[in-house]
């Protein structure tokens, strides 16, 4: 057991270190961005004195290292600062947006992950035959088309022609869960198509790799059905690579959905980030970057932990 705990502790420590390094990267990255926040807030006609006062009030004249640690100290206490443009507390305004993004990502994942794994299993069962080829062709085609194009095509047919679901997907607290899901059904479908291929292909490849093992032959010689063999004997031994690619795609569903959010005017994190980049609202951009990084690192860390725990040699030492 001790080896397992040691590996897990190592992995978690590594994740935290990575997050710390990323915070430095985000901070220095936003500093070297062109543009001046004070100028942005006060407009072109501001007097030099007003600009100087503004900069002093915002702390823009302090040395970068000091600003970094002030910021980091705040973040560690849950204080992401105040927005330069709106003057509101960032944590509060992001909270709602993040909730929306996670809501969309959650439902897209609930549908796409089991579907991808099921399709992967079917592809293995009928490998090199028409179901396998059909699944590969469809999923590869859907990943090859840019997602905004799929989105607009889906809007045209599902929303404009058939009028099944809205194309503008603004949701709010007064809606019931059913209404919310109906509202976001097209973005969920488009996101599913986008992430399906990667997970399906990886499931297929990982299981096919295991299917070469001698213990699969043992299972065949026990007279088991092919699907039982794939599900009960092959799949448990290919969890590690599958979980890794699933987590990469989940991370994408959270941090990479900017395009979809913009197309469907969905009030999520991506759109929030894009808005504030154009306004040079540095504290908001930093906060968004840090949250995205945390999600990404956290999910990948989780994948690694699952891979470590899935290894029976580590879970049950001699």
């Amino acid at each position, binding site marked *: 057991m001790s080896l397992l705990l040691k590996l897990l502790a190592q992995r978690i420590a590594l994740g935290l270190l990575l997050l710390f390094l990323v915070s430095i990267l985000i901070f220095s990255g936003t500093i070297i961005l062109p543009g001046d926040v004070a100028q942005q807030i006060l407009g072109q006609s501001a007097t030099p004195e007003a600009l100087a006062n503004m900069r002093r009030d915002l702390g823009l004249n302090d040395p970068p290292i000091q600003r970094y640690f002030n910021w980091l100290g705040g973040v560690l206490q849950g204080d992401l600062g105040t927005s330069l443009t709106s003057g509101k507390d960032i944590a509060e305004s992001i909270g709602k947006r993040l909730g929306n993004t996670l809501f969309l990502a959650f439902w897209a994942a609930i549908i796409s992950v089991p579907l991808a794994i099921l399709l992967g299993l079917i592809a293995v069962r009928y490998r090199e035959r028409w179901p396998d080829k059909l699944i590969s062709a469809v999923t590869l085609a859907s990943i090859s088309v840019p997602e905004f194009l799929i989105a607009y095509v889906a809007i045209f047919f599902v929303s404009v022609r058939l009028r099944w679901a809205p194309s503008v997907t603004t949701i709010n607290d007064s809606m019931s869960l059913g209404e919310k899901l109906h509202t976001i059904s097209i973005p969920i479908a488009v996101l599913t198509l986008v992430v399906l291929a990667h997970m399906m292909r990886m499931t297929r490849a990982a299981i096919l790799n295991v299917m070469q*093992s*001698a*213990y699969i*032959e*043992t*299972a*065949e*010689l*026990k*007279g*088991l*059905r092919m699907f039982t063999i794939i599900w009960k*004997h092959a799949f*448990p*031994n290919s969890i590690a690579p599958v979980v890794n690619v699933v987590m990469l795609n989940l991370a994408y569903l959270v941090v990479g959905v900017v395009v979809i959010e913009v197309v469907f005017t969905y009030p999520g994190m991506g759109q929030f980030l894009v808005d504030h980049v154009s306004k040079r609202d540095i504290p908001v951009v930093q906060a968004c970057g840090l949250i995205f990084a945390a999600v990404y690192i956290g999910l990948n860390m989780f994948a690694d932990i699952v891979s470590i725990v*899935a290894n*029976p*040699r580590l879970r*049950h030492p*001699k």
Partner: protein
Amino acid sequence: MSDKLLKVQNLKIGATVYPPGEKPHDIEIVHGVSFEVEKGKVLGLIGESGAGKSTIGLASMAYGRGGVKITGGEVWVNGRDILKTTNADVRALRGGEVTYVSQSAAASFNPAKKIMDQVTEAAILQGKFSKKEAERRAVELFRKLGLPDPENIGNRYPHQVSGGQLQRCMTALALCPEPDLVVFDEPTTALDVTTQIDVLMAIKEAIRDTGVAALYITHDLAVVAQVSDDILVLKMGDMVEYGSVDQIINNPQEEYTKALVSVRSIEHAEKTPTPEPVLKVKNITARYKGTNFDVLKNINVELHPGQTLAVVGESGSGKSTLARVITGLLPQSNGSVHFAGRDLSKDLGGRSKEDLRELQMIYQMADVAMNPRQTVGTIIGRPLEFYFGLRGAEKRKRIVELLDEIEMGAGFIDRYPAELSGGQKQRVCIARALAAKPKMIICDEVTSALDPLVADGILKLLLDLQKIEDVAYLFITHDLATVKAIADSIAVMYQGEVVRYGGKTDVLSPPFDDYTDLLLSSVPEMKLGWLEEVIANRKMESAGN
């Protein structure tokens, strides 16, 4: 049909081959084989690799491995031709009526599932027993097969038990659904001799107690003689001889069978030690990095010029580690290696080109020790260039000489390793080692992966070359028959220590220490009833104690 459990008639099996540079095409690998097995009887299928014995064994379960297809003939099990029945019936046959024990239990158990679940799976799935009954039966089998803690061993995962134990678990897996026939495919080949004898006895008793019939596949005639009623000798997919075990062992009719029975024909008289050994290993102690356990403990051995020191022991005894220390791959923590009148540096980086040249190595797996994209000429020519700077015609002349010495000839110079047989590959590796004109060659299990007749040829070649080149061999092996054939002196290793060391005659003559006695008495002998004799002797001894 009659009361024959298994009746195979004119079985033909084909496979698709993908030779380099040619179009894939179908070939026949089993050319019309017929045999039968009665209830409760054991038929031994024997032959060298490529004889088609595993393929035939699997055909009795209507199974073809990889691209193997059954192309003709009939396989009758319990009165029906299983090659013409439905898929559902084939599934009921596999794991129900006929079960399988593979060579490598370690690879054949699913690493992610508990042993008990895998042992009982087929019996439950085929509806033969309820989960509870199957588990009770499994525990009973574990006990019968002599596994430790039979009540709980099923709760372990495959990696938590030893190789010999896992092989017995595999036998339990095969016997659990109360099959009519078990196919044993080299079930003891991967085990140490001392483990093999226990597993062999367990299998034999299990067969006797359950009244199950069996196909016993092996390349080792001495092993099959202990468990079979009848023997079928196969060669390149053809039947050579088919008869009772007594007739095959004591009165073989065919030349090929005679060769198999009389293999190990080499006689090699022990040479007397010279005053100055070429290799002197003094007080070597070594451990692997990051561990706190000595894998070698105070080893002292000597090897004389032009002679052979056999280092013998089971897996994990430290014999290959000793080779790693001598070659500098694993620096020792204590002691010294004295070679050709000088002390060798602990690690590889500190050794001169001359040190490297004079100490060559040959490995067990000839095909992974050669670059598959280089021709035989390039492989043998490389040390000639590197150590002697030979080029062009001069180099070619020397390569041809070496190819003649290994009895292959200049015709092989442009061939690739993939175009050679296992024995030929090992010969090329020998030529490559000789090309450096070494004083000593370390041979690490060089014949273990080869068929007995081929291995015999390699050993003869090594002895002949020793006479011509006056080279010394440090011969690492687990096979005592090989040791008897070629050694001048022997070091028996056990758990990192040399437990017995001296001239061949002394080491192999009584009185023995306990371990050497166990090792020597475990080597299967080609006579009927040997297994029972050994087991009876051991029981008497332990009762006497």
